[in-house]
């Protein structure tokens, strides 16, 4: 709509001005009607006076109907600078006794004797204001009707004047209202302009709260909400900056190793030494590649949290087999025994198979890494109500209870870890579990010692049920 492009000030005027205009018109019309009413009454009274004067002339001592008026009196009666004045006197038989014109009777009926009634009618095709006066003739017992009328020029001229005199100040008044409303809106919205300027002046890094004092209640609320958002935004940005700083920090050590090993390799004096140096170099590149992948997974899982996720049903058994199959070589190299324990076929879970595979791979990989040679890693899944619980158990050193929550944070490494890890595996699993509306719990493995990582992931809704 075109109103969408209007400024707030324009919108307020748009909503305020029509009713103000309407009210002004109503007020103007009412005033006009009242003034007209009283003015007309004055004219009516003078009309009545004329009729009464005429009536009082009626009748003589003999009780006969006789109007003995000198021609000068008639001229006086008829005289009016602006309007044409008509008069007539008739009896109850309809005979016109006197007058300069036959005037129509009051359609609403003749007034009782001694009373005057006003009415409008047309005479010679002109609108005329009339007054009728009934005079009882005491001698004959007959009734006489005295009618006096005049055209409306005087009244119309007066109405025009009244209107003109009313409208001019009214227009000034209206202009005054528009001016003050415009000013008032401007003043009322000054805090909004102040906030606009305050926001416009800011650098993109400044997330400090906007001043909340001296603001009207409505705006105060908006600013408070904005400030709230700023705080949350600030927290997210801080978390991201910390992530980048941590990630950089995490990358620096292996890169240093890589540089140093490369330099040592260059200094090698014989092929055997060179081969040994290159083998170490290779191990470092593998480690760096793994770290880079993990950082990527973590940021992907975190980014995915913000976006909408289209989950599909993922079969649990195939998922487990796929993950474990890939990690068997690493386990064998470390002489760690890996097995899958499945209790029946659990229902498919709702999720992203890529992410779920990554989550389990990280948990199993972690278990293999922290289990010493000759150890055991068991991977399993069972259905528990509306969720499937994935369980990865090892008989490694375990994690002290106090640290179990912290190891789920990115880059946290237990002081006892002692193994080359990035401190990202569990964080990735944690992030992916949250993404799937699940949760991860770390407990001591049954039989004491070792670690059990359990992840609950909701099952996929049955086909055809609901969405």
């Amino acid at each position, binding site marked *: 709509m075109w109103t969408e492009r209007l400024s707030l000030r324009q919108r307020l005027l748009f909503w305020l001005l029509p009713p103000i205009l309407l009210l002004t018109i109503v007020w103007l019309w009412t005033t006009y009607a009242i003034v007209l009413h009283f003015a007309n009454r004055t004219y009516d009274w003078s009309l009545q006076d004329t009729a009464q004067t005429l009536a009082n002339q009626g009748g003589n001592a003999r009780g006969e109907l006789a109007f003995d008026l000198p021609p000068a009196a008639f001229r006086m009666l008829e005289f009016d600078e602006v309007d044409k004045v008509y008069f007539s006197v008739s009896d109850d038989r309809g005979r016109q006794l006197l007058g300069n014109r036959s005037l129509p009777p009051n359609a609403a009926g003749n007034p009782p004797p001694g009373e005057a009634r006003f009415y409008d009618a047309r005479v010679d095709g002109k609108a005329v204001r009339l007054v009728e006066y009934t005079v009882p003739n005491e001698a004959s017992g007959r009734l006489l009707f005295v009618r006096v009328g005049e055209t409306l020029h005087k009244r119309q001229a007066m109405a025009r004047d009244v209107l003109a005199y009313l409208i001019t100040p009214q227009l000034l008044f209206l202009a005054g209202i528009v001016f003050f409303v415009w000013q008032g809106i401007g003043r009322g919205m000054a805090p909004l302009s102040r906030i606009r300027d305050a926001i416009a002046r800011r650098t993109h890094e400044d997330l400090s709260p906007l001043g909340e004092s001296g603001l009207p209640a409505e705006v105060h609320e908006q600013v408070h909400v904005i400030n709230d958002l700023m705080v949350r935004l600030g927290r997210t940005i801080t978390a991201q900056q910390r992530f980048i700083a941590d990630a950089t920090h995490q990358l620096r050590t292996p890169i*240093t190793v890589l*540089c*140093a090993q490369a330099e040592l390799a260059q200094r090698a004096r014989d092929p055997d030494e060179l081969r040994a140096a290159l083998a*170490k170099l290779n191990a470092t590149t593998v480690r760096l590649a793994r770290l880079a992948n993990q950082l990527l997974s973590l940021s992907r899982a975190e980014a995915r949290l913000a976006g909408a996720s289209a989950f599909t049903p993922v079969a649990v058994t195939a998922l487990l087999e796929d993950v474990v199959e890939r990690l068997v070589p690493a386990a064998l190299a470390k002489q760690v025994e890996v097995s899958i324990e499945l209790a029946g076929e659990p229902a498919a879970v709702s999720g992203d198979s890529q992410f779920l595979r990554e989550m389990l791979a990280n948990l199993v990989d972690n278990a293999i890494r922290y289990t010493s040679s000759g150890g055991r890693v068991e991977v399993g899944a069972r259905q528990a109500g509306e969720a499937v619980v994935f369980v990865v158990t090892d008989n490694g050193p375990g994690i002290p209870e106090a640290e179990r929550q912290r190891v789920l944070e990115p880059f946290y490494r237990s*002081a006892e870890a002692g193994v*080359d890890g990035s401190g990202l595996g569990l964080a990735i699993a944690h992030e992916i579990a949250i993404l799937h509306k699940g949760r991860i719990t770390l407990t001591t493995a049954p039989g004491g010692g070792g670690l059990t990582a359990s992840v609950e992931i909701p099952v996929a809704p049955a086909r055809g049920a609901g969405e």
Partner: protein
Amino acid sequence: MRVLLVEDDEALRDTLSQALRQAGHGVDQVADGRAADNALVTGTYDLAVLDLGLPHVDGIEVLRRMRERQDRTPVLVLSARDGIDERVLGLRAGADDYLTKPFALRELEARVDALIRRAAGGLARLVHGPLEVDLAERTATVDGKPLDLTAREMAILEALMKRAGQVVIKTRLAQQIGDWASEVGSNTIEVYIHRLRKKLKPCGVGIRTIHGLGYLLETPGVD
């Protein structure tokens, strides 16, 4: 020189100790702050290379405790944090130098040498008659002609030249060039001294044995 290397990353620790050993230093390596603390209290080192992010006890704390004990061993701090605040914190806590990861091995070696040299009185060259040792380059020359020495022989020669004309105690010498992994015994020192004597003979510089105590670099032409 005997160096304590404190670094929790195994790969980096191995690589750096290999490089320092190749440069002729005796290297002890520990992986956490607690072990570093113990090593520094019990042993004597010419230099400590200290990573800051350590398990158990933070590197800065290790450094602070060292300085509190009046331990003046030069410390080269390694850190992945490169902020000005971090550097200032490290230097204020008593570090002699600060190296940010990643760094080139050559730079580490040059800084290690510089720190050891500074501790020795700031000399870059030691001169003894026709014999000259460049501490920065780690080379020895006789009348301008290079002397072919192994890293260990070089280390012993340096130790002797720094105290030319004075006795260098044998056990200290063994400590300086050895480390926990390869304890250098008296016999080994004797072997190195023997080889050094042979290489130094042409220029008339002699090493005298003080029985039961150690060795002394003789001033040429004095006896």
